[in-house]
C-alpha cells in the first residue's frame, strides 16, 4: 500500500560519539527533533522502515562497488564501529527477508540494485536508528547509494531509485516508512573536518522542500565537491527520498550547523498523503 512516511535526517557519527562537545542547547534541540521524527514514524504504524543510507566502506568496496544495494536478510548487525567510540551498543537489528525480496524484485524492474543477504550497519544507519527506533522493534530494509568511491551514482539515477522504491513499496500490502540519511555539505575525516557550507545546505534543503526534481539533480559532482565537499556527495540519499515522495512537498523540521558534529544537522519530512 502507499508509503506511509517519507523523511530524511543526518547520520554524522559525532552526534553520538562527541555529543557532549557540542553546544548544549543545539544538541538538545537536535535530539528532540530526532525523537519527534521517531514518534511521527510510529504514528503512521509502519510494518517496516526502509533506510536509504550512504555507507562508508562497511560492506562495499571498490572490488565490487554497487551503485545501489538493498539488504535481504531477517536480521542485521550494527554498529560496526567501536561501541565505546560511537556510544551505541552493537546489536542484532530485525529485518524481513521476504519483504526485502519483494521490494528488490520490484525495484529491479527499472533500477539495477545489488542485493545483500548480510549487511553490517555503520553509523550511517546506526546513529539514526539510535534515536528513531531505540527499541529496535521495527524491521529494517537497508538500502545504499554509492556516495563514496568514484565513479559515483549519477544524481538522476538516485532519483530513479527513489521512484523505483516508491513503486515497489506501493505494490506490497505492508505499511512502509522510508528515511534517507546523509550529510549535506561536509568534509569528514579530512583536515577540514567541521567545515560547513551553511548557505549551500539551506539552498539544497529549499530545493528538497520544494521537491524540485530539476533543481535537485542539476548539481555536477565537481560543483558538489567544490561547495559541499566529499561528504556532500551524500545528497543522493535525500534526492532518492524526494523522488519517493512522488511530488509531495517537504518541511525542514530542524536544521542547525553544529561544527563538532561536522554537518548542518537536519531533520526533514515529506508531506505525503498516507
Amino acid at each position: 500500500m502507499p508509503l506511509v512516511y517519507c523523511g530524511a535526517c543526518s547520520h554524522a557519527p559525532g552526534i553520538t560519539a562527541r555529543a557532549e562537545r557540542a553546544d548544549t542547547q543545539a544538541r538538545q534541540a537536535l535530539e528532540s527533533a530526532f525523537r519527534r521524527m521517531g514518534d511521527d514514524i510510529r504514528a503512521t504504524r509502519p510494518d517496516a522502515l526502509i533506510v536509504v543510507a550512504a555507507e562508508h566502506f562497511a560492506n562495499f568496496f571498490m572490488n565490487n562497488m554497487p551503485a545501489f544495494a538493498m539488504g535481504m536478510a531477517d536480521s542485521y548487525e550494527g554498529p560496526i564501529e567501536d561501541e565505546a567510540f560511537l556510544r551505541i551498543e552493537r546489536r542484532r537489528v530485525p529485518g524481513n527477508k521476504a519483504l526485502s525480496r519483494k521490494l528488490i524484485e520490484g525495484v529491479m524492474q527499472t533500477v539495477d540494485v545489488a542485493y545483500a543477504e548480510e549487511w553490517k550497519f555503520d553509523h550511517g544507519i546506526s546513529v539514526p536508528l539510535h534515536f528513531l527506533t531505540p527499541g529496535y522493534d521495527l524491521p529494517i530494509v537497508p538500502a545504499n547509494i554509492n556516495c563514496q568511491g568514484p565513479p559515483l551514482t549519477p544524481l538522476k539515477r538516485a532519483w530513479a531509485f527513489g521512484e523505483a522504491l516508491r513503486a515497489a513499496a506501493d505494490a506490497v500490502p505492508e505499511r512502509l516508512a522510508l528515511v534517507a540519511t546523509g550529510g549535506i555539505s561536509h568534509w569528514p575525516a579530512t583536515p577540514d573536518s567541521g567545515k560547513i557550507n551553511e548557505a549551500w545546505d539551506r539552498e539544497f534543503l529549499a530545493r528538497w522542500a520544494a521537491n524540485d526534481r530539476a533543481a535537485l539533480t542539476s548539481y555536477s559532482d565537481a560543483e558538489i565537491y567544490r561547495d559541499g565537499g566529499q561528504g556532500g556527495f551524500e545528497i543522493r540519499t535525500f534526492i532518492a527520498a524526494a523522488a519517493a515522495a512522488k511530488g509531495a512537498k517537504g518541511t525542514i523540521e530542524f536544521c542547525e550547523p553544529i561544527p563538532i558534529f561536522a554537518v548542518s544537522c537536519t531533520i526533514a519530512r515529506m508531506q505525503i498523503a498516507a
Partner: protein
Amino acid sequence: MSLYQVQKLIYQLNRDPRTRERYAAERDAVLAEHELTDEERRALVEPDIGLLYVLGVNGQLLMHFAALHKIEWNAYLEAMRQGLVRHGPVREGVYAATGYEGVEAHDARLKREREIH
C-alpha cells in the same frame, strides 16, 4: 599508481579481525600480498598518515587505520596537515583539503552570529 591496493589492505584491516591479527604477527607477509610501490609500503609501515592522505587514501578508510595505530583524532587531523606541508597537495581521489578555520573558531563565529540576529 596502486592506490587501490593500499586502500584494499586498509579496508581489510578495518573489516577483518583475522587480517589485523596477521598484520600484527607477520606484517611483511600481509604487505607482500599487495602490489605496492616502495613509497606506499613505507607510508603504511611507518605509518605516515600524512603521506597516505596525500597519496589519496579515502578519509573514511584512513581514519580507521589511524585509530588502529592508536593515533587519536586531533593527532590524525594534524598528521594530515603535516602531510600537506611535507608532501604537497593530495595527488589522487576526492579527499583534498580546502582550508578551514577549525571547529573552535567556527563554533565561536556561529555563536557570535546568533547573538547578532
